Protein backbone atom coordinates (compact mmCIF):
# COMPACT_ATOMS: atom_id res chain seq x y z
CA UNK A 1 0.00 0.00 0.00
CA UNK A 2 1.28 3.41 -0.92
CA UNK A 3 2.06 5.84 1.92
CA UNK A 4 -0.17 8.53 0.48
CA UNK A 5 -3.20 7.67 -1.63
CA UNK A 6 -5.13 10.39 -3.37
CA UNK A 7 -8.50 9.46 -4.86
CA UNK A 8 -10.68 11.57 -7.15
CA UNK A 9 -9.46 14.70 -5.40
CA UNK A 10 -11.20 17.87 -6.56
CA UNK A 11 -11.04 21.48 -5.43
CA UNK A 12 -13.68 23.75 -6.90
CA UNK A 13 -13.61 27.46 -6.10
CA UNK A 14 -16.55 29.83 -6.13
CA UNK A 15 -17.63 30.43 -9.68
CA UNK A 16 -16.91 26.83 -10.59
CA UNK A 17 -13.17 27.10 -11.27
CA UNK A 18 -11.64 23.67 -10.76
CA UNK A 19 -8.13 24.16 -9.39
CA UNK A 20 -7.73 20.42 -8.96
CA UNK A 21 -9.91 18.12 -11.00
CA UNK A 22 -10.41 14.42 -10.19
CA UNK A 23 -6.80 13.72 -9.33
CA UNK A 24 -5.63 10.19 -8.51
CA UNK A 25 -2.10 9.74 -7.24
CA UNK A 26 -0.14 7.36 -5.08
CA UNK A 27 3.08 8.32 -3.38
CA UNK A 28 5.32 5.50 -2.25
CA UNK A 29 7.23 5.56 1.00
CA UNK A 30 10.70 7.05 0.60
CA UNK A 31 10.28 8.48 -2.88
CA UNK A 32 10.59 12.05 -4.06
CA UNK A 33 7.59 12.86 -6.18
CA UNK A 34 7.80 16.16 -8.06
CA UNK A 35 4.60 17.91 -9.14
CA UNK A 36 5.50 19.99 -12.15
CA UNK A 37 3.37 22.26 -14.28
CA UNK A 38 2.77 25.85 -15.30
CA UNK A 39 1.35 28.35 -12.84
CA UNK A 40 -2.35 27.72 -12.36
CA UNK A 41 -1.98 24.04 -13.12
CA UNK A 42 -3.15 23.16 -9.60
CA UNK A 43 0.11 21.74 -8.27
CA UNK A 44 0.32 23.97 -5.20
CA UNK A 45 -3.39 23.50 -4.45
CA UNK A 46 -2.87 19.74 -4.61
CA UNK A 47 0.12 20.00 -2.26
CA UNK A 48 -1.71 22.17 0.25
CA UNK A 49 -4.64 19.78 0.43
CA UNK A 50 -2.30 17.12 1.78
CA UNK A 51 -1.65 19.08 5.00
CA UNK A 52 -5.11 20.63 4.84
CA UNK A 53 -4.06 24.22 4.32
CA UNK A 54 -6.73 23.94 1.64
CA UNK A 55 -9.78 21.73 2.15
CA UNK A 56 -10.84 19.57 -0.78
CA UNK A 57 -14.29 19.91 -2.34
CA UNK A 58 -14.49 16.20 -3.10
CA UNK A 59 -12.41 13.06 -3.05
CA UNK A 60 -10.04 11.83 -0.38
CA UNK A 61 -6.45 11.77 0.74
CA UNK A 62 -5.25 8.83 2.82
CA UNK A 63 -1.97 8.68 4.68
CA UNK A 64 -1.14 5.10 5.73
CA UNK A 65 -4.77 4.29 4.97
CA UNK A 66 -6.22 7.01 7.22
CA UNK A 67 -8.33 9.74 5.69
CA UNK A 68 -6.77 13.12 6.53
CA UNK A 69 -10.13 14.88 6.74
CA UNK A 70 -10.83 12.81 9.85
CA UNK A 71 -7.63 14.03 11.55
CA UNK A 72 -7.03 17.11 13.66
CA UNK A 73 -5.43 19.48 11.12
CA UNK A 74 -3.02 20.94 13.69
CA UNK A 75 -1.70 17.53 14.72
CA UNK A 76 -1.54 16.47 11.06
CA UNK A 77 0.56 19.52 10.10
CA UNK A 78 2.96 18.98 13.00
CA UNK A 79 3.66 15.52 11.61
CA UNK A 80 4.36 16.73 8.09
CA UNK A 81 7.39 18.85 7.20
CA UNK A 82 6.60 21.99 5.22
CA UNK A 83 8.94 24.21 3.21
CA UNK A 84 7.70 27.22 1.24
CA UNK A 85 9.17 29.41 -1.48
CA UNK A 86 9.16 32.58 0.59
CA UNK A 87 10.93 30.72 3.40
CA UNK A 88 8.96 32.36 6.24
CA UNK A 89 11.49 32.15 9.07
CA UNK A 90 10.39 33.93 12.24
CA UNK A 91 12.50 37.12 12.26
CA UNK A 92 12.33 37.63 16.03
CA UNK A 93 13.60 34.14 16.88
CA UNK A 94 17.14 32.84 16.72
CA UNK A 95 18.09 30.26 14.12
CA UNK A 96 18.05 27.61 16.84
CA UNK A 97 14.51 28.55 17.93
CA UNK A 98 13.38 28.69 14.32
CA UNK A 99 14.61 25.17 13.63
CA UNK A 100 13.13 23.76 16.82
CA UNK A 101 9.68 25.29 16.43
CA UNK A 102 7.77 22.05 15.85
CA UNK A 103 9.59 20.31 18.74
CA UNK A 104 8.62 23.30 20.89
CA UNK A 105 4.98 22.98 19.81
CA UNK A 106 5.22 19.31 20.73
CA UNK A 107 6.61 20.14 24.14
CA UNK A 108 10.16 18.83 23.94
CA UNK A 109 12.40 19.92 26.81
CA UNK A 110 14.75 22.78 26.02
CA UNK A 111 17.96 20.74 26.09
CA UNK A 112 16.68 18.23 23.57
CA UNK A 113 15.51 21.03 21.28
CA UNK A 114 18.96 22.60 21.37
CA UNK A 115 20.65 19.32 20.52
CA UNK A 116 18.29 18.69 17.64
CA UNK A 117 18.84 22.18 16.26
CA UNK A 118 22.62 21.71 16.34
CA UNK A 119 22.36 18.34 14.66
CA UNK A 120 20.19 19.74 11.87
CA UNK A 121 22.38 22.82 11.38
CA UNK A 122 25.31 20.51 10.80
CA UNK A 123 23.20 18.40 8.45
CA UNK A 124 22.44 21.36 6.19
CA UNK A 125 26.09 22.39 6.22
CA UNK A 126 26.06 25.33 8.64
CA UNK A 127 28.36 25.38 11.66
CA UNK A 128 26.10 25.13 14.74
CA UNK A 129 28.39 27.18 16.98
CA UNK A 130 28.49 29.97 14.47
CA UNK A 131 24.85 30.07 13.49
CA UNK A 132 22.65 28.89 16.35
CA UNK A 133 22.26 32.27 18.07
CA UNK A 134 22.02 34.38 14.95
CA UNK A 135 18.82 35.85 13.57
CA UNK A 136 17.34 35.21 10.12
CA UNK A 137 18.10 38.75 8.93
CA UNK A 138 21.82 38.01 9.36
CA UNK A 139 21.71 35.12 6.86
CA UNK A 140 21.80 35.08 3.07
CA UNK A 141 18.78 33.79 1.14
CA UNK A 142 20.44 30.45 0.48
CA UNK A 143 21.35 30.04 4.16
CA UNK A 144 17.82 30.99 5.18
CA UNK A 145 16.31 28.30 2.98
CA UNK A 146 18.77 25.76 4.38
CA UNK A 147 17.26 26.65 7.76
CA UNK A 148 13.80 26.32 6.18
CA UNK A 149 14.68 22.75 5.17
CA UNK A 150 16.24 21.96 8.56
CA UNK A 151 13.11 23.26 10.29
CA UNK A 152 10.94 20.89 8.25
CA UNK A 153 13.09 17.95 9.41
CA UNK A 154 13.10 18.90 13.10
CA UNK A 155 10.62 16.33 14.37
CA UNK A 156 11.74 13.68 11.90
CA UNK A 157 8.47 13.61 9.92
CA UNK A 158 7.83 10.79 7.44
CA UNK A 159 6.44 13.18 4.86
CA UNK A 160 7.83 16.53 3.73
CA UNK A 161 5.95 18.94 1.47
CA UNK A 162 8.05 21.46 -0.44
CA UNK A 163 6.38 24.27 -2.37
CA UNK A 164 8.88 25.67 -4.89
CA UNK A 165 11.51 25.81 -2.14
CA UNK A 166 14.33 27.06 -4.34
CA UNK A 167 12.22 29.25 -6.62
CA UNK A 168 13.13 32.57 -5.03
CA UNK A 169 16.90 32.02 -4.96
CA UNK A 170 19.41 33.30 -7.49
CA UNK A 171 20.42 30.72 -10.12
CA UNK A 172 23.81 29.87 -8.62
CA UNK A 173 22.48 29.43 -5.08
CA UNK A 174 19.53 27.47 -6.46
CA UNK A 175 21.78 25.01 -8.23
CA UNK A 176 23.86 24.61 -5.10
CA UNK A 177 20.82 23.95 -2.92
CA UNK A 178 19.41 21.50 -5.47
CA UNK A 179 22.64 19.55 -5.36
CA UNK A 180 22.67 19.59 -1.54
CA UNK A 181 19.03 18.53 -1.54
CA UNK A 182 19.80 15.60 -3.83
CA UNK A 183 22.42 14.36 -1.43
CA UNK A 184 20.27 15.06 1.62
CA UNK A 185 17.28 13.13 0.30
CA UNK A 186 19.45 10.09 -0.32
CA UNK A 187 20.60 10.28 3.27
CA UNK A 188 17.27 10.88 5.02
CA UNK A 189 15.04 8.62 2.90
CA UNK A 190 11.88 10.63 3.47
CA UNK A 191 8.76 10.72 1.39
CA UNK A 192 8.94 14.10 -0.29
CA UNK A 193 6.37 15.86 -2.42
CA UNK A 194 8.00 18.72 -4.23
CA UNK A 195 6.25 21.37 -6.32
CA UNK A 196 8.06 23.25 -9.08
CA UNK A 197 7.39 24.90 -12.42
CA UNK A 198 10.99 24.32 -13.47
CA UNK A 199 11.21 21.21 -15.62
CA UNK A 200 14.99 21.04 -15.19
CA UNK A 201 14.60 21.03 -11.42
CA UNK A 202 11.93 18.35 -11.71
CA UNK A 203 14.07 16.05 -13.86
CA UNK A 204 17.07 16.67 -11.66
CA UNK A 205 15.41 15.92 -8.32
CA UNK A 206 12.51 13.57 -8.97
CA UNK A 207 12.31 9.84 -8.44
CA UNK A 208 8.99 10.18 -10.20
CA UNK A 209 7.42 13.29 -11.61
CA UNK A 210 3.77 14.14 -12.15
CA UNK A 211 3.04 16.56 -14.96
CA UNK A 212 0.00 18.74 -14.22
CA UNK A 213 -2.14 20.97 -16.36
CA UNK A 214 -5.56 22.55 -15.71
CA UNK A 215 -5.97 20.68 -12.43
CA UNK A 216 -5.25 17.25 -13.86
CA UNK A 217 -2.27 14.96 -13.73
CA UNK A 218 -1.35 14.07 -17.28
CA UNK A 219 1.46 11.63 -16.60
CA UNK A 220 3.30 10.21 -13.61
CA UNK A 221 6.53 8.32 -14.14
CA UNK A 222 10.29 8.37 -13.65
CA UNK A 223 11.78 11.41 -15.44
CA UNK A 224 13.65 9.28 -17.99
CA UNK A 225 10.46 7.51 -18.94
CA UNK A 226 8.40 10.67 -19.18
CA UNK A 227 11.11 12.16 -21.38
CA UNK A 228 11.30 9.09 -23.56
CA UNK A 229 7.55 8.50 -23.79
CA UNK A 230 5.45 11.61 -23.20
CA UNK A 231 1.85 10.54 -22.61
CA UNK A 232 0.33 13.09 -24.92
CA UNK A 233 0.96 16.20 -26.94
CA UNK A 234 0.66 18.54 -23.99
CA UNK A 235 3.37 16.74 -22.05
CA UNK A 236 5.55 16.65 -25.15
CA UNK A 237 5.01 20.38 -25.67
CA UNK A 238 5.66 21.09 -22.00
CA UNK A 239 8.99 19.30 -22.18
CA UNK A 240 9.45 21.25 -25.37
CA UNK A 241 12.73 21.97 -26.98
CA UNK A 242 14.63 21.07 -23.84
CA UNK A 243 13.61 17.46 -24.09
CA UNK A 244 16.79 16.08 -25.60
CA UNK A 245 18.86 18.20 -23.27
CA UNK A 246 16.80 16.97 -20.30
CA UNK A 247 17.15 13.38 -21.34
CA UNK A 248 20.88 13.76 -21.36
CA UNK A 249 20.85 15.38 -17.94
CA UNK A 250 18.66 12.58 -16.56
CA UNK A 251 21.27 9.99 -17.53
CA UNK A 252 24.17 9.27 -15.21
CA UNK A 253 27.62 8.61 -16.56
CA UNK A 254 27.65 5.18 -14.87
CA UNK A 255 24.67 4.11 -17.01
CA UNK A 256 26.41 4.69 -20.31
CA UNK A 257 30.14 4.34 -19.69
CA UNK A 258 32.21 1.47 -20.99
CA UNK A 259 32.97 -0.46 -17.87
CA UNK A 260 36.14 -2.26 -18.82
CA UNK A 261 38.35 0.37 -20.41
CA UNK A 262 41.68 -0.66 -21.83
CA UNK A 263 44.26 0.40 -19.28
CA UNK A 264 47.99 0.16 -19.10
CA UNK A 265 49.69 -0.09 -15.77
CA UNK A 266 52.67 2.19 -15.87
CA UNK A 267 55.64 0.99 -13.87
CA UNK A 268 58.95 2.74 -13.27
CA UNK A 269 60.90 0.76 -15.83
CA UNK A 270 61.10 -0.11 -19.42
CA UNK A 271 57.69 0.21 -21.10
CA UNK A 272 57.86 1.80 -24.54
CA UNK A 273 55.53 3.56 -26.90
CA UNK A 274 55.62 0.48 -29.14
CA UNK A 275 53.91 -1.56 -26.45
CA UNK A 276 51.13 1.03 -26.19
CA UNK A 277 50.65 0.99 -29.95
CA UNK A 278 50.41 -2.78 -29.85
CA UNK A 279 47.74 -2.66 -27.10
CA UNK A 280 45.71 -0.16 -29.08
CA UNK A 281 45.80 -2.29 -32.20
CA UNK A 282 44.90 -5.42 -30.30
CA UNK A 283 41.85 -3.88 -28.60
CA UNK A 284 41.00 -1.56 -31.47
CA UNK A 285 40.84 1.55 -29.31
CA UNK A 286 42.17 5.06 -29.82
CA UNK A 287 42.71 5.86 -26.16
CA UNK A 288 44.53 4.05 -23.39
CA UNK A 289 44.15 4.95 -19.75
CA UNK A 290 47.44 5.00 -17.91
CA UNK A 291 47.04 3.83 -14.31
CA UNK A 292 49.27 3.05 -11.36
CA UNK A 293 49.29 -0.13 -9.29
CA UNK A 294 46.14 0.89 -7.42
CA UNK A 295 44.35 1.56 -10.75
CA UNK A 296 44.53 5.26 -10.02
CA UNK A 297 44.41 7.38 -13.14
CA UNK A 298 47.71 8.89 -14.26
CA UNK A 299 46.55 10.24 -17.60
CA UNK A 300 45.48 9.25 -21.09
CA UNK A 301 47.49 7.99 -24.06
CA UNK A 302 46.09 8.80 -27.49
CA UNK A 303 46.92 7.39 -30.91
CA UNK A 304 48.03 10.84 -32.00
CA UNK A 305 50.61 10.97 -29.22
CA UNK A 306 51.80 7.47 -30.04
CA UNK A 307 52.15 8.16 -33.78
CA UNK A 308 54.08 11.35 -33.31
CA UNK A 309 56.74 9.88 -31.06
CA UNK A 310 59.52 7.34 -31.59
CA UNK A 311 58.49 3.74 -31.05
CA UNK A 312 61.35 3.04 -28.66
CA UNK A 313 60.62 6.11 -26.50
CA UNK A 314 59.58 5.59 -22.86
CA UNK A 315 55.83 5.24 -22.25
CA UNK A 316 55.98 7.94 -19.56
CA UNK A 317 56.62 10.56 -22.24
CA UNK A 318 53.33 10.15 -24.10
CA UNK A 319 50.95 10.23 -21.12
CA UNK A 320 48.76 13.31 -21.19
CA UNK A 321 48.57 13.90 -17.47
CA UNK A 322 46.38 16.99 -17.59
CA UNK A 323 43.44 15.06 -19.10
CA UNK A 324 40.19 15.59 -17.20
CA UNK A 325 38.05 12.86 -15.69
CA UNK A 326 34.42 12.65 -14.50
CA UNK A 327 32.65 10.89 -11.66
CA UNK A 328 30.26 8.00 -12.43
CA UNK A 329 27.53 10.00 -10.60
CA UNK A 330 27.84 13.01 -12.89
CA UNK A 331 25.02 13.57 -15.36
CA UNK A 332 25.72 12.94 -18.99
CA UNK A 333 25.18 16.56 -19.94
CA UNK A 334 28.00 17.82 -17.76
CA UNK A 335 30.20 14.95 -18.94
CA UNK A 336 29.63 15.95 -22.56
CA UNK A 337 30.46 19.49 -21.57
CA UNK A 338 33.73 18.41 -19.99
CA UNK A 339 34.52 16.31 -23.03
CA UNK A 340 33.83 19.17 -25.42
CA UNK A 341 36.22 21.40 -23.52
CA UNK A 342 39.03 18.88 -23.36
CA UNK A 343 41.46 17.99 -26.13
CA UNK A 344 40.73 14.31 -26.03
CA UNK A 345 38.00 12.25 -27.65
CA UNK A 346 37.56 10.05 -24.59
CA UNK A 347 36.82 10.86 -20.98
CA UNK A 348 38.07 8.63 -18.15
CA UNK A 349 35.55 7.88 -15.39
CA UNK A 350 37.08 7.71 -11.91
CA UNK A 351 35.47 7.08 -8.54
CA UNK A 352 35.93 9.06 -5.35
CA UNK A 353 39.32 7.45 -4.64
CA UNK A 354 40.64 8.36 -8.06
CA UNK A 355 40.47 4.78 -9.39
CA UNK A 356 39.47 4.16 -12.96
CA UNK A 357 36.01 2.59 -13.25
CA UNK A 358 35.19 3.23 -16.89
CA UNK A 359 35.52 5.44 -19.93
CA UNK A 360 33.22 7.56 -22.05
CA UNK A 361 34.06 7.73 -25.74
CA UNK A 362 32.50 9.64 -28.59
CA UNK A 363 31.32 6.40 -30.14
CA UNK A 364 29.69 5.11 -26.94
CA UNK A 365 27.81 8.42 -26.70
CA UNK A 366 26.61 8.14 -30.28
CA UNK A 367 24.96 4.88 -29.30
CA UNK A 368 23.19 6.56 -26.36
CA UNK A 369 21.94 9.43 -28.50
CA UNK A 370 20.70 7.07 -31.18
CA UNK A 371 18.76 5.02 -28.67
CA UNK A 372 17.08 8.06 -27.06
CA UNK A 373 16.21 9.60 -30.37
CA UNK A 374 14.73 6.35 -31.62
CA UNK A 375 12.52 6.35 -28.52
CA UNK A 376 11.54 9.95 -29.03
CA UNK A 377 10.25 9.24 -32.50
CA UNK A 378 7.56 6.95 -31.12
CA UNK A 379 6.07 10.05 -29.52
CA UNK A 380 4.15 12.80 -31.31
CA UNK A 381 5.89 14.71 -34.05
CA UNK A 382 5.98 18.13 -32.37
CA UNK A 383 8.52 16.88 -29.91
CA UNK A 384 11.36 16.66 -32.33
CA UNK A 385 12.91 19.94 -31.41
CA UNK A 386 16.17 18.55 -30.09
CA UNK A 387 19.34 20.32 -31.18
CA UNK A 388 20.40 19.04 -34.57
CA UNK A 389 23.91 17.91 -33.92
CA UNK A 390 25.92 15.81 -36.33
CA UNK A 391 25.43 12.83 -34.02
CA UNK A 392 21.70 13.19 -34.14
CA UNK A 393 21.53 13.35 -37.89
CA UNK A 394 23.61 10.22 -38.16
CA UNK A 395 21.34 8.47 -35.69
CA UNK A 396 18.29 9.40 -37.68
CA UNK A 397 19.83 8.16 -40.87
CA UNK A 398 20.17 4.72 -39.34
CA UNK A 399 16.62 3.58 -39.88
Amino acid at each position, binding site marked *: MALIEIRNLTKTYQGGFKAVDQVNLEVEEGETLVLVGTSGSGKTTLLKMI*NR*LIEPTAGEIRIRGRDVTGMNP*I*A*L*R*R*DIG*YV*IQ*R*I*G*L*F*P*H*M*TIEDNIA*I*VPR*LKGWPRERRREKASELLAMVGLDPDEYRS*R*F*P*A*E*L*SGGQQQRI*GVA*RALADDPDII*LMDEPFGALDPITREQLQEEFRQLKERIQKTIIFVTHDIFEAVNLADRMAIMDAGRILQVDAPERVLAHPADEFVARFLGKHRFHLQMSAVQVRDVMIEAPVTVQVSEGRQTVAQAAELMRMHRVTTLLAVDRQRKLLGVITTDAVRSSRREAGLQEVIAREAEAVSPDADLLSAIDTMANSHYSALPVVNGEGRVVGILTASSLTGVFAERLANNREAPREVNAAPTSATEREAEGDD
Partner: protein
Amino acid sequence: MIEIWLYLSSCRGDIAYWTLQHLELVAVAMGIAIAAGVALGLLLTRVRLLAAPVLGAASVVQTIPSIALLGVMIPLLGIGRTPAIVALTLYALLPIIRNTYIGIKQTDPAIVEAGVGMGMSDRQILLMVELPLAVPVIIAGIRTSTVICVGIAALATLIGAGALGTPIITGIQTYNNAQIWAGALVAASLALALDFLLGRAEKALMPRGLRVSS
Protein backbone atom coordinates in the same frame (compact mmCIF):
# COMPACT_ATOMS: atom_id res chain seq x y z
CA MET B 1 10.99 84.08 33.74
CA ILE B 2 11.82 85.00 37.29
CA GLU B 3 8.14 85.43 38.11
CA ILE B 4 7.40 81.94 36.83
CA TRP B 5 10.22 80.58 38.94
CA LEU B 6 9.01 82.46 42.01
CA TYR B 7 5.50 81.17 41.50
CA LEU B 8 6.74 77.58 41.09
CA SER B 9 8.86 77.71 44.24
CA SER B 10 6.25 79.42 46.37
CA CYS B 11 3.48 77.03 45.37
CA ARG B 12 5.58 73.87 45.28
CA GLY B 13 3.04 71.96 47.30
CA ASP B 14 0.12 72.87 45.02
CA ILE B 15 2.09 72.20 41.86
CA ALA B 16 3.16 68.79 43.12
CA TYR B 17 -0.43 67.99 44.04
CA TRP B 18 -1.78 69.02 40.59
CA THR B 19 1.00 67.15 38.85
CA LEU B 20 0.13 63.99 40.73
CA GLN B 21 -3.54 64.49 39.92
CA HIS B 22 -2.59 64.98 36.29
CA LEU B 23 -0.45 61.85 36.23
CA GLU B 24 -3.21 59.89 37.89
CA LEU B 25 -5.81 60.92 35.31
CA VAL B 26 -3.43 60.03 32.46
CA ALA B 27 -2.33 56.76 34.05
CA VAL B 28 -5.84 55.49 34.74
CA ALA B 29 -7.13 56.56 31.33
CA MET B 30 -4.11 55.04 29.56
CA GLY B 31 -4.40 51.82 31.55
CA ILE B 32 -7.97 51.36 30.41
CA ALA B 33 -7.22 52.51 26.87
CA ILE B 34 -4.27 50.12 26.48
CA ALA B 35 -6.23 47.13 27.75
CA ALA B 36 -9.32 47.92 25.70
CA GLY B 37 -7.43 49.24 22.66
CA VAL B 38 -5.07 46.28 22.28
CA ALA B 39 -7.93 43.84 22.85
CA LEU B 40 -10.12 45.62 20.30
CA GLY B 41 -7.26 45.87 17.84
CA LEU B 42 -6.61 42.13 18.12
CA LEU B 43 -10.31 41.41 17.76
CA LEU B 44 -10.38 43.44 14.55
CA THR B 45 -7.58 41.32 13.06
CA ARG B 46 -9.64 38.18 13.71
CA VAL B 47 -13.03 39.61 12.73
CA ARG B 48 -12.10 41.71 9.73
CA LEU B 49 -15.70 42.81 9.16
CA LEU B 50 -15.57 44.88 12.34
CA ALA B 51 -12.41 46.72 11.35
CA ALA B 52 -13.93 49.51 9.26
CA PRO B 53 -16.81 50.42 11.65
CA VAL B 54 -14.70 50.30 14.83
CA LEU B 55 -11.79 52.28 13.40
CA GLY B 56 -14.33 54.71 11.92
CA ALA B 57 -16.08 55.23 15.25
CA ALA B 58 -12.78 55.77 17.06
CA SER B 59 -11.78 58.36 14.46
CA VAL B 60 -15.06 60.20 14.87
CA VAL B 61 -14.48 60.46 18.63
CA GLN B 62 -11.10 62.00 17.94
CA THR B 63 -12.61 64.72 15.76
CA ILE B 64 -14.87 65.98 18.57
CA PRO B 65 -13.27 69.06 20.19
CA SER B 66 -11.96 68.04 23.59
CA ILE B 67 -13.81 70.76 25.49
CA ALA B 68 -17.06 69.63 23.87
CA LEU B 69 -16.46 65.99 24.77
CA LEU B 70 -15.75 66.93 28.37
CA GLY B 71 -18.93 69.01 28.42
CA VAL B 72 -20.98 66.17 26.98
CA MET B 73 -19.81 64.00 29.87
CA ILE B 74 -21.43 66.22 32.54
CA PRO B 75 -25.10 65.25 31.95
CA LEU B 76 -24.04 61.59 31.65
CA LEU B 77 -21.52 61.18 34.45
CA GLY B 78 -21.64 64.43 36.40
CA ILE B 79 -18.43 66.23 37.24
CA GLY B 80 -15.13 65.18 38.80
CA ARG B 81 -12.58 62.50 37.95
CA THR B 82 -14.80 59.81 36.42
CA PRO B 83 -16.10 61.80 33.42
CA ALA B 84 -12.60 63.18 32.83
CA ILE B 85 -11.10 59.70 32.76
CA VAL B 86 -13.80 58.41 30.40
CA ALA B 87 -13.18 61.29 28.01
CA LEU B 88 -9.41 60.82 28.08
CA THR B 89 -9.82 57.09 27.51
CA LEU B 90 -11.97 57.70 24.45
CA TYR B 91 -9.32 60.02 23.01
CA ALA B 92 -6.53 57.56 23.72
CA LEU B 93 -8.27 54.60 22.10
CA LEU B 94 -7.89 55.32 18.41
CA PRO B 95 -4.07 55.34 18.07
CA ILE B 96 -3.84 52.16 20.13
CA ILE B 97 -6.56 50.24 18.27
CA ARG B 98 -5.25 51.39 14.92
CA ASN B 99 -1.61 50.57 15.62
CA THR B 100 -2.44 47.17 17.10
CA TYR B 101 -4.56 46.32 14.07
CA ILE B 102 -1.97 47.55 11.59
CA GLY B 103 0.95 46.03 13.50
CA ILE B 104 -0.63 42.59 13.42
CA LYS B 105 -1.93 42.90 9.88
CA GLN B 106 1.43 43.86 8.45
CA THR B 107 3.01 40.55 9.51
CA ASP B 108 4.60 39.00 6.44
CA PRO B 109 2.03 36.47 5.10
CA ALA B 110 4.87 34.02 4.38
CA ILE B 111 5.67 33.90 8.09
CA VAL B 112 2.06 33.20 8.97
CA GLU B 113 1.79 30.54 6.25
CA ALA B 114 4.91 28.82 7.54
CA GLY B 115 3.52 28.89 11.07
CA VAL B 116 0.14 27.49 10.11
CA GLY B 117 1.78 24.90 7.85
CA MET B 118 3.92 23.69 10.73
CA GLY B 119 0.87 23.21 12.91
CA MET B 120 0.59 26.35 15.02
CA SER B 121 -2.90 27.12 16.27
CA ASP B 122 -4.43 30.54 15.64
CA ARG B 123 -3.66 31.46 19.23
CA GLN B 124 -0.03 30.34 18.92
CA ILE B 125 0.38 32.33 15.70
CA LEU B 126 -0.92 35.39 17.53
CA LEU B 127 1.07 35.02 20.74
CA MET B 128 4.32 33.53 19.43
CA VAL B 129 4.60 35.33 16.12
CA GLU B 130 2.28 38.21 15.33
CA LEU B 131 2.17 39.94 18.70
CA PRO B 132 5.94 39.98 19.38
CA LEU B 133 6.51 41.33 15.87
CA ALA B 134 3.83 44.03 16.34
CA VAL B 135 5.09 45.24 19.73
CA PRO B 136 7.10 48.22 18.43
CA VAL B 137 4.13 49.45 16.38
CA ILE B 138 1.73 49.04 19.31
CA ILE B 139 4.04 50.96 21.64
CA ALA B 140 4.30 53.74 19.08
CA GLY B 141 0.50 54.00 19.27
CA ILE B 142 0.59 54.08 23.07
CA ARG B 143 3.18 56.85 22.90
CA THR B 144 0.98 58.98 20.66
CA SER B 145 -2.03 58.42 22.93
CA THR B 146 -0.09 59.34 26.05
CA VAL B 147 1.02 62.68 24.65
CA ILE B 148 -2.55 63.47 23.54
CA CYS B 149 -3.84 62.51 26.99
CA VAL B 150 -1.38 64.72 28.88
CA GLY B 151 -2.52 67.66 26.76
CA ILE B 152 -6.23 67.05 27.13
CA ALA B 153 -5.96 66.31 30.86
CA ALA B 154 -5.08 70.00 31.27
CA LEU B 155 -8.71 70.75 30.39
CA ALA B 156 -10.10 68.33 32.97
CA THR B 157 -10.16 71.08 35.55
CA LEU B 158 -13.13 72.57 33.66
CA ILE B 159 -15.28 69.64 34.80
CA GLY B 160 -13.85 69.65 38.30
CA ALA B 161 -11.14 67.05 37.95
CA GLY B 162 -8.30 69.31 39.04
CA ALA B 163 -4.80 68.59 37.66
CA LEU B 164 -2.40 70.98 35.93
CA GLY B 165 -5.20 72.83 34.18
CA THR B 166 -6.11 74.39 37.49
CA PRO B 167 -3.27 76.97 37.70
CA ILE B 168 -3.68 77.72 34.00
CA ILE B 169 -7.41 78.45 34.22
CA THR B 170 -7.00 80.39 37.46
CA GLY B 171 -4.16 82.33 35.89
CA ILE B 172 -6.35 83.26 32.91
CA GLN B 173 -9.15 84.40 35.19
CA THR B 174 -6.83 86.52 37.39
CA TYR B 175 -4.55 87.82 34.61
CA ASN B 176 -1.63 86.04 36.28
CA ASN B 177 0.70 85.21 33.42
CA ALA B 178 3.31 83.56 35.62
CA GLN B 179 0.73 81.13 36.88
CA ILE B 180 -0.43 80.26 33.32
CA TRP B 181 3.15 79.69 32.21
CA ALA B 182 4.00 77.62 35.23
CA GLY B 183 1.09 75.21 34.65
CA ALA B 184 1.78 75.02 30.93
CA LEU B 185 5.51 74.37 31.41
CA VAL B 186 4.97 71.59 33.92
CA ALA B 187 2.32 69.94 31.72
CA ALA B 188 4.58 70.20 28.66
CA SER B 189 7.55 68.76 30.54
CA LEU B 190 5.37 65.90 31.68
CA ALA B 191 4.38 65.14 28.07
CA LEU B 192 7.99 65.31 26.91
CA ALA B 193 9.21 63.10 29.74
CA LEU B 194 6.57 60.43 29.12
CA ASP B 195 7.22 60.55 25.37
CA PHE B 196 10.93 60.07 26.00
CA LEU B 197 10.39 57.14 28.37
CA LEU B 198 8.02 55.40 25.99
CA GLY B 199 10.45 55.97 23.15
CA ARG B 200 13.06 54.11 25.18
CA ALA B 201 10.55 51.35 25.90
CA GLU B 202 9.78 51.07 22.20
CA LYS B 203 13.46 50.45 21.46
CA ALA B 204 13.95 48.12 24.40
CA LEU B 205 10.96 45.97 23.48
CA MET B 206 11.85 45.76 19.79
CA PRO B 207 12.64 42.06 19.21
CA ARG B 208 16.40 41.62 18.81
CA GLY B 209 16.02 39.82 15.52
CA LEU B 210 14.41 42.92 14.00
CA ARG B 211 17.23 45.19 15.11
CA VAL B 212 19.97 43.26 13.39
CA SER B 213 20.59 43.63 9.72
CA SER B 214 22.81 41.59 7.51
